């Protein structure tokens, strides 16, 4: 498609040339066509999931070589996945904000505020765990409405609004938790999200179900598209994608099902509850973004707000809504973090939390300039960030180096994004 520059187009318009039209919808119907189209896209600056997948592979090999005894163990891999959960969930919400070309610098500390609400409700009252969870999520929704209102309705740049709130919400967390304090989270259900596992059989059943469901959806879509003569990919590509998903899902389940207990007397095996929760969030948000009118309008506002406005889309409503989704996901991320750490401190969600999440979204392929990104980017990028954090922890590098490396990785991802965008503009993509 990148060859579609002016001369080609001109020659296509000569009388007698390309009489049928839409021939691309059919030529893409071969494996070669799909591969060529993909290579063209990559050359044209749309790298998609490539950097994240490369990052996972390269970093995985690097840390395996540097720490052969500890990195690739089932225990560490499980830790790594659970570490990735709060980052990934936060990044999923940020994908929506970034799609509009906006930024939410306060997302990390919002997760802290919501976690503090959760911890205090659990500590001060005797309500069941789900009431505390709802309170935390409601806090996230309200914060999102507030932020979104300031950006979308008042019209303050999101950078400034969320920078101010970044400070403000830290004050709120401090007030809720108390100076130097720590509120423990001892609720068994909340703690269990990150620290308990599904029974082995249930874990396997769920993994198989996910693969079958994915396969059924993909094959059904392919069948319908072909039956109605719509643009569709060749069957072999669809099957290859299903096979890839099957290998990854079943492989991860297999690793998580190995007994990873350090002592021989206890059994520790199975999929932590946090993993299927992330999977559900991934499915729901992917559906929202890819298959509903709302999602389409989010992309449209991110791509060309003026075009969206003229098409009758309520741009303000979309703008407010992405901040609500961002803060709601931040609340869930805060709950996940509190579950993993078993406590909430005034520093929860501060520090490099936001940097990690923005890094995850951008490394995964979401553009900082708006208009391009998917929810799965947060998962892939979240894994890369978690591998870096986990690996550097295993290497025991000094704190200053940790900051430098993590900051450098985000900068690298943002540079790739900016260069890809320039390349896209140059090649007409």
């Amino acid at each position: 498609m990148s060859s579609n520059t002016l001369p080609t187009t001109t020659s296509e318009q000569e009388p007698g040339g390309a009489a049928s039209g839409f021939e691309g919808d059919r030529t893409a119907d071969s494996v070669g066509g799909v591969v060529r189209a993909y290579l063209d896209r990559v050359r044209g600056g749309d790298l998609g999931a490539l950097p994240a997948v490369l990052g996972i592979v390269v970093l995985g090999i690097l840390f395996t070589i540097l720490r052969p005894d500890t990195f690739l163990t089932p225990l560490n891999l499980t830790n790594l996945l659970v570490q990735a959960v709060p980052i990934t969930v936060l990044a999923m919400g940020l994908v929506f904000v970034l799609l509009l070309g906006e930024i939410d610098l306060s997302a990390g500390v919002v997760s802290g505020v919501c976690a503090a609400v959760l911890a205090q409700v659990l500590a001060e009252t005797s309500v069941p765990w789900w009431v505390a969870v709802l309170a935390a999520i409601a806090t996230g929704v309200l914060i999102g409405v507030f932020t979104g209102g300031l950006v979308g309705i008042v019209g303050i740049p999101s950078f400034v609004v969320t920078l101010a709130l970044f400070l403000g919400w830290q004050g709120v967390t401090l007030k809720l938790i108390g100076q130097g304090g720590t509120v423990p989270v001892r609720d068994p259900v909340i703690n269990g999200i990150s620290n308990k596992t599904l029974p082995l059989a249930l874990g396997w059943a769920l993994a198989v179900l996910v693969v079958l469901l994915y396969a059924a959806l993909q094959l059904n879509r392919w069948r319908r598209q072909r039956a109605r003569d719509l643009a569709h990919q060749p069957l072999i590509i669809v099957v290859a994608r299903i096979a890839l998903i099957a290998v990854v899902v079943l492989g991860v389940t297999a690793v998580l099902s190995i007994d990873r207990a350090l002592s021989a007397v206890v059994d520790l095996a199975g999929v932590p509850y946090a993993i299927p929760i992330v999977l559900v969030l991934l499915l729901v948000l992917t559906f929202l973004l890819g298959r509903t009118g709302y999602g389409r309008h989010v992309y449209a506002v991110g791509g060309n707000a003026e075009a969206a406005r003229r098409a009758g889309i309520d741009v303000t409503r979309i703008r407010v809504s992405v901040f609500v989704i961002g803060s709601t996901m931040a609340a869930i991320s805060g709950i996940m973090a509190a579950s993993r750490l078993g406590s909430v401190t005034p520093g929860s969600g501060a520090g490099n939390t936001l940097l990690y999440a923005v890094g995850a979204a951008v490394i995964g392929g979401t553009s900082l300039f708006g208009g391009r990104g998917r929810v799965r980017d947060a998962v892939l990028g979240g894994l890369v960030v978690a591998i870096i954090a986990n690996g550097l922890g295993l290497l025991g590098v000094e704190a200053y180096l940790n900051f430098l490396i993590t900051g450098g990785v985000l900068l690298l991802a943002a540079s790739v994004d900016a260069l890809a965008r320039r390349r896209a503009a140059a090649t007409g993509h």
Partner: protein
Amino acid sequence: MSVPPASPHDGSPADVPTLELRGVNKSFGVIQVLHDVAMKVYSGKVTALVGDNGAGKSTLIKSIAGIHGTDSGEFLFEGRPVQLGGPRVAAGLGIEVVYQDLALADNLDVVQNMFLGRERKNGIVLDEASMEQAAKETLTRLSVRTLKSVRQLVASLSGGQRQTVAIAKAVLWESKLVILDEPTAALGVAQTRQVLDLVRRLADNGHAVIFISHNMVDVFEVADRICALYLGRVAADVPISEVDRSQVIELITAGRSGNLGIAPAVADAGV
């Protein structure tokens, strides 16, 4: 809403203009931009709207599109008086405008752009299949043969292809009147050819078309009627066969040409 006796041949659709303006006036503050504008636009015909910069073309089409209100004057749509109170009202009547800056989202594909804001749904799920088919049908009806795929991102299209998509988007909605704001302004020779052919086909398919252009070659190639604006007044609204190129240029630059155009006193007062 009775049908006014607009023409002696009432009832025969060819004689009732799709859109007729009578005595339309519009001021921005103390500056009067449109003076007693009267024009007729017929279905199946391309009406070229010409005039120098500042003659009031943009204000006029924005009034028709319902974006600006007018101070006085009548709009008759298919013979019936209408109030173009807003863009939604205009769109509801079947008036679609393709603006010069096209208003396409680069990050969406052709189908997604054509249905933007008016997506078809099954419940809450987008009905991609039906939208893709409808988009293809519309493009085929307009004999658009230059798109490789309707699932191509608009970012990867050439200027002419973008114009094509924007026009097809306007036509998708059973529009009766399509207003094209300088559709060939930024295009090369081959792409201009392609868009002019498309403009012709729009009219041949029964749409009424208002075609705004500064290019007299394009105007004489594609238009059936010409409406020349001079300082907010209609200098001429005539079949194109009644004028030649130099007359049109005189109408645009001086407001009159021979026995056509606005009265000299008015024209001079305006200068």
